[in-house]
């Protein structure tokens, strides 16, 4: 079981519903966010292209945050989801230093927090909050090891990329371009 996400950059309109839904679902403190929307503009007017991406923790296969954690608070759960056990976290910030995607932040309560792929919803068979509220349905979440899942189908039919693959982390969020 290998959970992953595919996000269609051609359908994303940058509405930030995914950001707000995540903050609501996971009680993210004001001023913090577990996911965000990035806009990349290439070229000079009038020949410009825009790419909108909803970014978050990539739940990497070769997660440097898990490797660098001195207490094992950062660990892998079912399906390769990377989680932080708050009562094991000492707040040293090593994982924050090691994440190329700037996905982690220091929660005001002291431990390190980030996107959890809404594992509490996934375990009940639901989609993560961001995926379920997206108005353009541009986000797919599923099991890469399930040949019948929607995500495998969409990755088979479309060109995709991941962020900073040269960082060597093997990220599991794929952007359909």
């Amino acid at each position: 079981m290998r959970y992953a996400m595919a996000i269609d950059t051609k359908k994303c309109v940058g509405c930030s519903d995914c950001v707000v839904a995540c903050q609501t679902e996971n009680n993210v403190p004001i001023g913090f966010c577990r996911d965000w929307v990035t806009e990349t503009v290439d070229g000079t007017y009038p020949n410009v292209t825009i790419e909108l991406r909803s970014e978050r923790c990539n739940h990497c296969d070769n997660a440097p945050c898990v490797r660098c954690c001195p207490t094992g608070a950062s660990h892998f759960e079912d399906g390769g989801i990377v989680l932080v056990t708050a009562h094991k976290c000492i707040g040293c910030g090593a994982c924050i230093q090691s994440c190329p995607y700037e996905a982690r932040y220091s929660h005001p309560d002291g431990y390190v927090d980030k996107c959890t792929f809404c594992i509490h919803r996934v375990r009940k068979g639901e989609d993560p909050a961001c995926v379920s509220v997206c108005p353009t349905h541009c986000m797919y979440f599923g099991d890469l090891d399930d040949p019948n899942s929607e995500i495998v189908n969409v990755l088979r039919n479309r060109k995709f990329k991941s962020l900073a693959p040269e960082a060597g982390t093997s990220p599991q969020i794929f952007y359909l371009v």
Partner: protein
Amino acid sequence: MREEIFVSGRNIPNIDPYLNIWHWQIPTYLFLGGLAAGILFFAGLFFIMGKEKQMPATVKWAPMIVPFALVLGLFALFLDLKHKLYFWQLYTTVRFTSPMSWGAWVLMAITPVSFIWAASYLREALPKWDWKLKMLKDFEKWVIRNRIIFAWAMVILAVILGIYTGILLSAFNARPLWNTSILGPLFLVSGMSTGAAAIILTSRSHEERRIIGKIDLLLIVIELFFIIHMIMGFLAGSEVQLAAAHLFLGGQFTVSFWVFVIILGLLFPALLEILELFGLKVPIVLPAILILLGGFIFRFIMVEAGQITRYLY
């Protein structure tokens, strides 16, 4: 022309606009840890070589600074933690893939060793000192008889302590400035150089200062070589590494790095030590203090500049 911005209004404390989660506590500890490693390395080394009488400051007096340095350094590390009440979790596990875990355990081992080594010479420094309890007096006798074991432990642990701080930073592959394997040896040599400088400051023997001074000169040359090697490595690397090198070659850290770390912290003290070997009278505190300051500022610059370098955005 490419422009990349956050459009969902992200402004996370300590993460945006650039990563600044580690502040003065970390470079302070890195300096104190390196200093402790340097002093203990030379103390153990010269004891093993049988030079306890000829190098009293190296073997006996300078190591008395180390317990204070380590305690202050550990306190600085503790202050840096954001989940302080759970700091003990560090000592419930050994994680071989995490250099921070190695560091926690090495410090756990070397701190008592440094206390014991310094304490075993306490009665030589202060003849009126009395341990009072028989258990302590017997322990002191046992330590003095078995100093060679402690000396070997110190040499090995000091090298691990000195090098792991560099390996720790280089393990963070998301920070291109740190992600070079030369950082481990560089921090080790820098730590040994600051340790030698501290020994020079505590020494009263002209002969001892000459020997340590020559060793320090060699360490400075090696350190300069490593720094140049590191920058050349970045210049021959990928785009993010070129951006990291640029911070020191025209970017915001250029002046502070070349003036305070290279010229005042390494080249000028080396020049003074060379002139002294040719007979010129130089107040010995000058190169020693410059080396200590240079090492301190070097770590501050590395920690702040490293957090600015990144892969994305």
